């Protein structure tokens, strides 16, 4: 038995290594989507756009809808100012190094005029540094929400069509203090974005008179939250503020219901994850009564959104989430910039962006802030409702024109 024990050990060791290797994930996949047709005798050069998105791996649930939004926009608008549009999509599988390789490939081999990407903060930052040194093509950051992109890491060549952590978290804090309760527990995923959201949440919550009694950090990939739930239950807060992205978040909300916390403490969610159709399918009526802070929701009433939702449903047969809108608006922004610049030269494109411009988005009219390079946009608080077994979201409060502070506010870091 002793001998086999040793063998067993070796196997466990080898196996653990393999497991780690499998987890780290590598970028083998790459998909190139060349929509171009040979332009014959066209006087204007086509606009070549390269998008580096996380289309496989952990963050695929964010990268894929962005791609769909971009595709939808350019299907509706196949030309910009008489120029043909050529789209290239590359997969970084959530890996910043892979994203940089794809960037080289796109700029050197395909000669793209504009790059879009950054499905997560780490990738957005990696691309940002590269683009900022090259100063050749502008980068449109499609998701990466890290605040420094608007402050210390701001670059003339980098602009964000999504949102910043500060926009979400400070409004979450403000709303929680105003509309839910003064005593809150925070549960957040233990990674960069989680810490950033908590850092931005607390000052604004405290400003409204709130007090955070406990911060619970759950590792990414937690499947069973029961221990954390009893911990929350133990401190009996009025509000529970959560920032847990992706599949972890759906699991948490479901277990929040199972352990009977749903009816006891109001759940405030600050990442607009729960109204995404994919999450909704997984959690069902566990979102009822929960408050979510978001920059977009499909029921939003305006003309652009109505058309957008219809077109998206017709093409993809599902309801759009805010990542689709990020992609759609990225297309809109690029079109507008190229049109106004009348050129594909990087410097000229950037000078248009620096003047500031307004996009007619499904989110409502939004403005690109030339100071922080992040959109000035409304933040909506929505609440989950159940009527006849159907889950829907109702708008309960709108915070208008939320603009990033112009410089790092220097909050205490958590």
């Amino acid at each position, binding site marked *: *038995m*002793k001998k*086999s*024990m040793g*063998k*067993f*050990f070796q*196997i*466990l060791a080898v*196996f*653990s290594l*393999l*497991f780690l290797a*499998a*987890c780290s994930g590598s970028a083998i996949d790459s998909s190139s989507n060349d929509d171009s047709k040979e332009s014959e005798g066209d006087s204007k050069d086509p606009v070549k756009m390269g998008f580096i998105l996380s289309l*496989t791996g952990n963050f*695929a*649930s964010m990268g894929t809808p962005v791609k769909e939004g971009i595709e939808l926009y350019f299907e509706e608008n196949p030309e910009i100012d008489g120029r043909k549009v050529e789209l290239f999509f590359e997969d970084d599988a959530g890996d910043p190094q892979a994203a940089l390789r794809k960037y080289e490939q796109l700029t050197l081999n395909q000669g793209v005029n504009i790059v879009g990407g950054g499905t997560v903060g780490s990738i957005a930052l990696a691309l940002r540094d590269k683009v900022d040194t090259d100063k050749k093509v502008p980068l449109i950051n499609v998701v990466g929400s890290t605040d420094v992109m608007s402050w210390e890491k701001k670059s003339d060549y980098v602009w964000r069509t999504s949102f910043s952590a500060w926009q979400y978290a400070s409004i979450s804090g403000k709303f929680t203090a105003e509309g839910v309760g003064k005593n809150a527990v925070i549960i957040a995923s233990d990674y960069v974005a989680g810490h950033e959201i908590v850092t931005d949440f607390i000052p604004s919550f405290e400003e409204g008179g709130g007090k955070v009694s406990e911060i*619970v*950090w759950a*590792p990414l990939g937690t*499947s*069973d939250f*029961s*221990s*954390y739930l*009893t*911990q929350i*239950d*133990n401190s009996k807060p009025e509000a529970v503020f959560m920032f847990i992205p*992706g*599949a972890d978040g*759906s*699991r948490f909300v*479901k277990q929040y219901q*199972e*352990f*009977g916390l749903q009816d006891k403490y109001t759940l405030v969610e600050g990442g607009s994850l729960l109204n995404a159709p*994919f999450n909704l399918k*997984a959690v*069902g009526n566990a979102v009822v009564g929960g408050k979510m802070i978001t920059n977009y929701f499909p029921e939003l009433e305006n003309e652009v959104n109505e058309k957008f939702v219809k077109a998206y449903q017709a093409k993809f047969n599902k309801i759009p989430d805010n990542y689709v809108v990020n992609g759609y608006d990225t297309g809109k922004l690029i079109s507008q910039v190229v049109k106004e610049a009348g050129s594909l030269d990087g410097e000229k494109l950037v000078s248009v962006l620096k003047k500031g411009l307004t996009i007619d988005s499904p989110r409502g009219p939004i403005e690109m802030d030339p100071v922080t390079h992040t959109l000035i946009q409304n933040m909506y608080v929505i609440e989950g409702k159940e009527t006849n077994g159907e889950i829907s979201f109702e708008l309960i409060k709108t915070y208008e024109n939320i603009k990033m502070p112009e410089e790092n506010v220097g909050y205490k870091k958590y």
Partner: protein
Amino acid sequence: MDLFIVNTLSGLTYGMLLFLMASGLSIVFGLMRIINLAHGSFFLFGSYVAYAMVSRGMNFWLALLLATICVTVLAFLLEKFLISRFHGNEASQVLLTLGLIFVIGDISLWIWGGDFLSIPVPSIMDFSFAINESSFPIYRLFVIAIGIACAVLLWYFETKTKVGMIVRAGVDDMEMVGALGFNIRLIFTAVFLFGAALAAIGGVLSGPILGMYPKMEFEILVNSLVIVLIGGLGSWKGAFIGAILIGIIDSFGKIYLPDVSVLLIFVVMVIVLMFKPTGLFGRVES
């Protein structure tokens, strides 16, 4: 106090799911000297199959039964056509079953996609009971009960039935059992399938608690391997105690030592093995 009770119960729930997985792994190893890494796939595949049936409107209990049968059939095919060919050759077996994990994992990914999925809690158990001011889902209590029931069943089989006697003898000396006229092949297959069925039941039961997602089988497998080592190879009793230990440690570790909770079970493993290198219930071979 509430916190303590609820956490203990949570730990037991997770422990019982791990027990269903680890006991099969341990028994199969004890008898056949097969380290079947694909055991994790049985767990995950079981829950995916049950999900497919429940999401099409099938009753949870029927889905549990059918998914278990499905996995047992799969295990039968794998054992008959692949694993049995490499009997006695441990390195090949490990590589083979490791390969099978990836293959079955990719097939699942292909069929069910990479999204997080979960099975709804069966409606008759979709409520919680109160422990003073806290509450605990009744379904999890049911999972604990099933785990204990399986342990009792295993104990009964092992000590009170002839089959159990043969298997016990087989763990000690397989050749001798063969020489006495028992069909070793048949015993091997039966035990292998039994282990797979237990893993599948664990997988289906974990569907409403842990959910399903790609690479989940690795997570559960690593924990199960640790349990088998702590408990002692080839002993379901060891797996039972080990699983409870790991479940409880995991549950309390998350609260009291959140920074190191991921490592904690390995620390316990090292400590146990330092004092008892054969595991808690492992025997020293003469």
